[in-house]
């Protein structure tokens, strides 16, 4: 994997995942924002775990489609 590939990180306090490719636009972090460019004071939006307690993971996204049910 090239050094320029976008990384994914998971919060070790709750499992919230940050994907550099996606950012968190709803939290003011643009898509493509590198982990290193997020301030060290940042915390997990779901549980408040400090940025330093996220772990980089190389795990792919689920391929299972969502279960969708519609009224007739």
């Amino acid at each position, binding site marked *: 994997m090239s050094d320029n590939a976008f990384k*994914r990180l*998971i919060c*070790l*306090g*709750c*499992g*919230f*995942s940050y994907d550099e490719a996606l950012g968190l636009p709803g939290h003011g972090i643009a898509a493509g924002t590198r982990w290193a460019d997020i301030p060290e004071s940042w915390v997990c939006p*779901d*549980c408040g*775990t400090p940025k330093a*307690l996220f*772990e980089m*993971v190389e*795990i*792919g*996204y*689920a*391929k*299972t489609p*969502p*279960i969708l049910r519609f009224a007739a």
Partner: protein
Amino acid sequence: MTQSFLLRADERGFTKILSTGATGAYVGGHPDAFVTRYSSFNFHEYQSGRPGFGRIRVFGEEAFHSPGCSYNMHPHHNFIICAFVLGGTLTHINTLGRIDALRAGDYYAFSAGSGGLHEELNLGAEPMEAIYLWLLPDHLLLPPAYGQGHFDEAAGRNRITPLVGDGALAIPQDAKVSRLLSDGPGTYAYRPRSPGHGVYAFVLDGSLACDGTWLGRRDSKGIWDADKIALQTGPGTTDALLVETIL
């Protein structure tokens, strides 16, 4: 050449979390309730131990003290969260639509996937004691899933019984949890699925020789690069959890 790490009961991280003060939003049941947690691996404020083992990131022995003691409703993603109840009653509410009461021998596996919330409560006066195990999943943002099981002591006596993974309660990870319960001295062999799998053995009670090391109550050992793990139980009751994980 077999490799291992040893973690004695008193070498784990200990924390007591109050239902008052700074942790009052985290732990419910104020003012008397509190949670005690012994962490085998780094978790929350305990960061001076091992970071995990294979896909294991959390292994905690927890007790919820006083009626109403609870982890208030909180979110999770991704992690596969298992709880094995040892005593008391755990009331478990989650956004997969379940409200369950789990007692000694009961366990659940909650694969949080793309997201869910849960709340864990002790509604009774007797402390609720449980082992919490968190595993990384093999894919991110899976559809959330929840399953429950029960370890039957009579059927599980003097054998290694799979609880989670493999043919038991399915989880989205190459990992497995088994329980060894014996009522006297005996020998057992545990064979990891491949040379790339390790085993974390945790003694709930009694005495267990694990690849030559005698472990007592709440001692544990992680073993890898072993194609067979020799287990020997001591006199009286021995009760142990064996967590196998890809490395």
